[in-house]
Every structure is written in structure tokens, then in C-alpha cells.
């Protein structure tokens, strides 16, 4: 084994208590970093997952109508441009637009949506609902429903509807019952309930009614038009970046989920920022711990360092010995710390359960997380050892031996 490694290892072994002390510090630090990162990653993934479970990554909508100036001559302003009441705006020629959206790289799937206001009627009771006409096969590729199914089957043949659990409760509906829907045009039709769903939010459960695209178009008077195109992209964090391109390709307005859920995105960002801060300060504390123990150890090993120097050890080798010690402590500590952090994370998922006895959210300790943490610990170890190592390398051999 190279000289520096041999000496580094032997001195670590000799300074048993100190070595254990630093290893303990690094282990705890790494465990905290691993646990916090896994927790926050799991939490954020879960929140995003829950939020997006009923949303598309990007929604394409018709352009809004604006008033135009009547006269545009220099120095003459005839009318102020102001928003006007938006009539129900629809997307015509949607098949080709949807094909254009699908052709954009990174888009995984697309679904047409014809939505609008309506009423659900049962036994003389009327409830205001959102009619959402979809091609179920396409829609399922954008929004998951299988995990939301309470009863019935995910089928939308002509004349069938799927309703949220609150609406079903309020109107006393169950699968197989009939329900009358009234659209904006005043048209009324009777439908058979094929499934009751739990969308995860009370308001959605009260209002959402999924029905076949053709039926919705008829009820809402859109003829062959639709109101939105829902898109699913491969990397959901790219949605915002892709929106302008999608808008340009389709001639529609594109809203990414980040824009629609701006508050959530801000919350997630500040959470990430505070996590980063915790990690930074934990790393600093670990670095200071390593450095202070190593400063003491260099002082204690003065004599040994002096003898090594007298026997012809170049100063750079002494420097390396202590840098290696710092790195080794960091690496070995990160192995223990990763194990401890993972154990705490697993314990957390076992102990903190929701009302159904399931883990609140999955905490995932990934190999990538462990690898980056170990690398960080290695770096922190070497950097923390730098000052003590320089001290050791600069020791005057005469004084070291005498002292």
C-alpha cells in the first residue's frame, strides 16, 4: 500500500476514540441529509403527483377575444383596449391541432376535452355541474382514473356518464342509476351512471361529470368543436418551458401546470430552498467537527510527524496523509450515515400512516441520492482536513520531535 495510505490508516486506527468521534459526527450529519432529502423528495413528488392526478401537464385553450382599435392613426386613440366578456370559446379543426401538439418532442399523449356548465337532475333536485366530454381512451392517457374508481367500471359508451362521489351522494346515485343532464343549450338528456369516482377533492367530487365527447358537444352546442386539449409530457418539469412552443405550433394558448398552480410551485421552491439550507448548515457543522478533531490529532501526533519528517518524508506526503484521513472519515461516515438515514426513513414510512393505514407518502432513498451524499461527505472531509493537514505539513521537525 502507498506510504500515505498506510500511515493515514494506522494513525486513524491508533487514535481510536477520536476516529470514532469524527465518524459519529459524519454519520449523523449524513443521516440527516439523507433522511431530509428523501423525506422532502417523497413529499414533493407526492404533492405534485396528487395535484397532477386530475390535471394535464399542459392545457391548450382557444385564444381570448380582444377588442381591436377602430382607428389606428398617429396621435389618435379611438378606443381603449379592454377585455370583453368571453363567450364560450371553442377550438375548431382540433384534430389537426392535436396532431401538431402530439408531434412536439417531449409530448407523451393528448386528449380532447369539450367542457362547459350544466345541471344534473334527479328527482326534481338540480345541481350545478361541470360537464366534461372526453374520449375516455385518450383521457386515461393524460389523467389517471383507475386509482380514483370507487364503484362501477371505467367505461364511457354512448349514453353513459361517470360522476364524482359527492354528486352521487347528494343525488342519491349509484352505478346503474339514470341521471338527467341539462346543457347550456337547454337540451336535456338521460344517462346511465357507469362509475362513481373520487377525484381527491370535495369540490371536484361535487361538480365533475365525465361524459362521452360527442354527448358533451351536443349538450353544450359546440357542434364539432372542443374547448381544451389536455397534454401529458415526458418530463413534467419541462412543461413550462415547452408551453410557448406548443402555443406556436397549435395556434392556441398553452398553460403549463406550473402556471396554473403557481402557488404550489412557489411553496415547493421555498421548501427546496430551506432543505438546501439545512443541508448546507449540517455539512458545515460536520466540516467543523472533522476539522477540530483533526487539529487536535495533528497536535497529538507532532512527535510522529517530526520523526517521519526527520527520516526523509517530504512535506507533501504529510499533507496527503491528513487529507486522506479526512476523505476516509467522510466516506466511511457516509456509508454508516446512509444506512442510518435510510433506516430512519423506512421507520418513518412504517410509523406515520394515514387513516387507511397506508404510508402517507413513499420516501424513496435512491442510489443517486446515496452517491451524491457520499461524494459530498468525501468533499467535506477533504476540505475540512485541509487546514489541519497544512499545519501538519508545515511543522518544524526539530520542534515536533523535541515537543
Amino acid at each position: 500500500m502507498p506510504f500515505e495510505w498506510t500511515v493515514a490508516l494506522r494513525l486513524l486506527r491508533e487514535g481510536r476514540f477520536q476516529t470514532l468521534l469524527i465518524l459519529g459526527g459524519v454519520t449523523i450529519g449524513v443521516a440527516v441529509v439523507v433522511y431530509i432529502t428523501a423525506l422532502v423528495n417523497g413529499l414533493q413528488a407526492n404533492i405534485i403527483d396528487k395535484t397532477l392526478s386530475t390535471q394535464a401537464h399542459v392545457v391548450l385553450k382557444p385564444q381570448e377575444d380582444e377588442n381591436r382599435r377602430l382607428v389606428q392613426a398617429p396621435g389618435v386613440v379611438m378606443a381603449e383596449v379592454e377585455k370583453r366578456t368571453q363567450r364560450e370559446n371553442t377550438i375548431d379543426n382540433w384534430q389537426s391541432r392535436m396532431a401538431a401538439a402530439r408531434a412536439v418532442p417531449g409530448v407523451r399523449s393528448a386528449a380532447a376535452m369539450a367542457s362547459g356548465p350544466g345541471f344534473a337532475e334527479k328527482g326534481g333536485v338540480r345541481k350545478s355541474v361541470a360537464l366534461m366530454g372526453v374520449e375516455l381512451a385518450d383521457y386515461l392517457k393524460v389523467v389517471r382514473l383507475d386509482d380514483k374508481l370507487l364503484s362501477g367500471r371505467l367505461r364511457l359508451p354512448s349514453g353513459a356518464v361517470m360522476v364524482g362521489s359527492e354528486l352521487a351522494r347528494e343525488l342519491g346515485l349509484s352505478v346503474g342509476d339514470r341521471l338527467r343532464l341539462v346543457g347550456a343549450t337547454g337540451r336535456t338528456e338521460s344517462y346511465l351512471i357507469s362509475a362513481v369516482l373520487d377525484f381527491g377533492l370535495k369540490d371536484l367530487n361535487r361538480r365533475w361529470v365525465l361524459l362521452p365527447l360527442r354527448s358533451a358537444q351536443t349538450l353544450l352546442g359546440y357542434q364539432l368543436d372542443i374547448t381544451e386539449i389536455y397534454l401529458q409530457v415526458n418530463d413534467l418539469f419541462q412543461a413550462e418551458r415547452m408551453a410557448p412552443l406548443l402555443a406556436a405550433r397549435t395556434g392556441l394558448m398553452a398553460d403549463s401546470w406550473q402556471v396554473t398552480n403557481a402557488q404550489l410551485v412557489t411553496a415547493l421552491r421555498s421548501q427546496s430552498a430551506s432543505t438546501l439550507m439545512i443541508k448546507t448548515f449540517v455539512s458545515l457543522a460536520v466540516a467543523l467537527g472533522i476539522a477540530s478533531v483533526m487539529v487536535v490529532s495533528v497536535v497529538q501526533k507532532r512527535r510522529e510527524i517530526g520523526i517521519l519528517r526527520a527520516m526523509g518524508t517530504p512535506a507533501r506526503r504529510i499533507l496527503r496523509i491528513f487529507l486522506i484521513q479526512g476523505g476516509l472519515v467522510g466516506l466511511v461516515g457516509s456509508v454508516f450515515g446512509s444506512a442510518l438515514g435510510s433506516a430512519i426513513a423506512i421507520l418513518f414510512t412504517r410509523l406515520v400512516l394515514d387513516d387507511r393505514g397506508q404510508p402517507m407518502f413513499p420516501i424513496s432513498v435512491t442510489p443517486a441520492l446515496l452517491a451524491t451524499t457520499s461524494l459530498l461527505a468525501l468533499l467535506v472531509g477533504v476540505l475540512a482536513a485541509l487546514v489541519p493537514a497544512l499545519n501538519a505539513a508545515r511543522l518544524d521537525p526539530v520542534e515536533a520531535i523535541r515537543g
Partner: protein
Amino acid sequence: MADVMTLSGIRKAYGGGRSPRVEVLHGIDLALAEGEFAALTGPSGSGKSTLLNIMGLLEAPTSGTLVIAGQSTAGSDDALRTALRSRYLGFIFQFHHLLAAFSALENVMMPVHAAHGRVTRADRQRALALLERVGLSAHAHKSPLQLSGGQQQRVAIVRALMARPRLVLADEPTGNLDTQSAQEAFALMREINASDGVTFLIVTHDPRLADTCDRQIRLVDGQLVASPDTGVNASPPA
């Protein structure tokens, strides 16, 4: 016979600036010939340690020149002095200074290991042969802490020989040993000197041991004085 080391006009002063300047060595002229077995004696505080440190290239003199194996050390930096130490010099310390974290064998190999970064099979064999020579083969893999004082000093002596130095500097190598062990250690150095032709300079307080050396160099108040029995190579008192 060629000189292993030549010192001319070596002065060493400490302090200066705010603290008072104290000169410890006042112009030392000394030559050590190849194969000599010399004792350096003198009362404590006479500057023996400082002189030994300068000869060991552990400290630089304030003025004067030091030539080792024909190479001048004037203006040398730490890296060059380290390289010269590792190439030409062996050290034996009073408290043997073996490293407790290493076995006797590893301690013996240390000078080569430190200088070259690794040890070869040949290095290992040489170290084992050296231990065998001092009757410690059986203890090669023991920690120094498991050896007696005399055994430890024998390990330290062969460690000083490991890198085949031209000059071994020994700082009171027997100061910490009982009479019997001290005599054995001295005899061992003497024998190595005779068989291998390695030059020895031994600092000692023990006049009986000093008397057995070929030459006595006596240092008093930072100056070499003529020893009654040899009288060679010593500068007259100022």
C-alpha cells in the same frame, strides 16, 4: 579518505527582533571522514543538539557552510534538505522514537517507505535481514510497545541503516537504557561501523562510552575545544 560531511564557520543564533538575540554556535569547523566513529560530548547547554540538528539538515545555520557527500546545502529549501536527509543520513533518537502504530518491521522499513512512497520485496527482505542481524527476527511483527527498551533501541538502530545512509547521527542513543543495554547498543553501532563502513556521530554524556570511540569532539559554550586524548580537528577556544 573523503569527508562525508564538512562544516565551516557554522554559526547559529536564535531570536532577534524584539527578543534578545542569542548565538548558540560560534563558528564551528568540523569534518567527518568516511568510516569514522566519533563521539560528540559537552555539558548540557553547550549547543550539542543544535549542532546535531544542523548536521541532520533539520535546521539551517545562520551562517557558514555545510557540505554533505560533496554537495553544498547553501540556499537549499525544505524539499531539497528532505531529499538529502533521506539519501545520506540516518537518525537514532534518545527515546528511540519508534512509531507505536507500526510493527517493528514496518518501523525499520519506514525511511524507505517514506522516501519512495512504497516498499519493494527487496526492501522487505533487507529490513528482515537487519532485524535478524540484531537478533530480533522473532519480534518483527510485534508492536514496539511489546519490546524491551534495549530491543526498541536496536530496532531504531537498524531503522537508521535501512536507507543505506553515509552518516548516522545518534542523539544520546543510550541515554535511556540500563548499562547493559547501553553497552550492547554501543557495541552494535561499533560493529556496523566496522563491517559496513557507515560513519557515526554519537552524542553521549557517558565518558566511558565516549572513550571507546575513535574520536571525541567536545563542544563547550558553542565552540569546539581540543579533547585531551585526541586533540584533532577542534578549533581553539576564542
